[in-house]
């Protein structure tokens, strides 16, 4: 099946089985390796991308549903050289350990801040439920609050 969608603002067209997970299309067909595979069961969040601005776990999202939609991956989070507040905060707080889960967390956080500009700890606990095997949750929480500050300063 031919599927057209926007990936990080660029029109793309793929010809694949319509039930192929969007994650595979992003990584293996479009060769964007920032989005990670962790579980393939919508359980860990490593594959989180934005679909029309909403956080979506792309391992559990058949590519046919991407038709006509705008997809954003970690590669499209920054504005050129300008880091997204989430990326900036992640750098400042030196969040990653091995780094594998981080793109998913950052995409989930960016989606959260679009809806809740000043999330409380409770908002973070309820919304950011991805899994990090290295246990970087403590630094992540600090980075989410810092990203909120940076984003609010910028706007």
């Amino acid at each position, binding site marked *: 099946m031919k599927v057209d969608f926007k990936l990080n603002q660029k029109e793309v067209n793929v010809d694949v089985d319509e039930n192929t997970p969007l994650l595979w299309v992003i990584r293996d067909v479009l060769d964007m390796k920032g989005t990670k595979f962790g579980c393939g069961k919508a359980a860990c969040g490593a594959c989180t991308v934005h679909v029309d601005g909403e956080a979506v776990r792309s391992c*559990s999202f058949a590519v046919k549903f991407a038709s006509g939609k705008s997809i954003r991956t970690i590669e499209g989070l920054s504005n050129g050289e300008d880091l997204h507040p989430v990326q900036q905060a992640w750098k400042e707080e030196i969040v990653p350990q091995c780094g594998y889960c981080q793109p998913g967390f950052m995409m989930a956080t960016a989606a*959260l801040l679009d*809806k809740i500009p000043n999330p409380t700890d409770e908002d973070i606990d309820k919304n950011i439920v991805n899994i990090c095997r290295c246990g970087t949750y403590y630094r992540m929480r600090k980075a989410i609050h810092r990203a909120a500050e940076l984003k609010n300063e910028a706007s």
Partner: protein
Amino acid sequence: MKFRSILLMITLLTVVMVSYNFNEVAEVQLEEQSMEAFGTMMEVVMHKRCMNCHPKGDQPRQGEDSHLHYFGVQRGEDGHGIAALKCETCHQKENNLNSGVPGAPHWHLAPRSMAWEGLSRTEVASVFMNPETNGGKSPEEIEKHMTEDDLVLWAFEPGIGLDGVPREKPPVSKEEFIEAVKIWIANGAKIPSE
């Protein structure tokens, strides 16, 4: 002449009594049919495939053992989840056979007023027939919802779980369920006293 009149009267009386009896029998039969339909319908309604998304709290349940949904998933204001953790974050318009995540159009939780968890089957029926709790729906609208809504009918095609094992279906087929709902509502949607 007198004998003929008496005979006519007896005949008329017999006809009236027999037809009265027929009506009574027909009514009893309808009542029985309606109660049977109620039982069939409620076998589906009370099944975990329906009940898991009609919780009494703010978290859905899931699985064959109806445990609280993993990750502390929350109902949110409109039953579609919260800011960065919506139902649609993981659930799409159809079952995903790769991930084992179930899906159907407008996947979401029933509103708080439609909480069924912990209620008996007659209490559940009262809740979904009461316009004050069912979102102002008439019996006809309830019938349409129960017999045509893709999310309701998902219960009969629930797909496979994360472990690749097919999810348990309600004990009654989709066709039997739809027929039962229609019979029960056509006969006045009477809820038995239990």
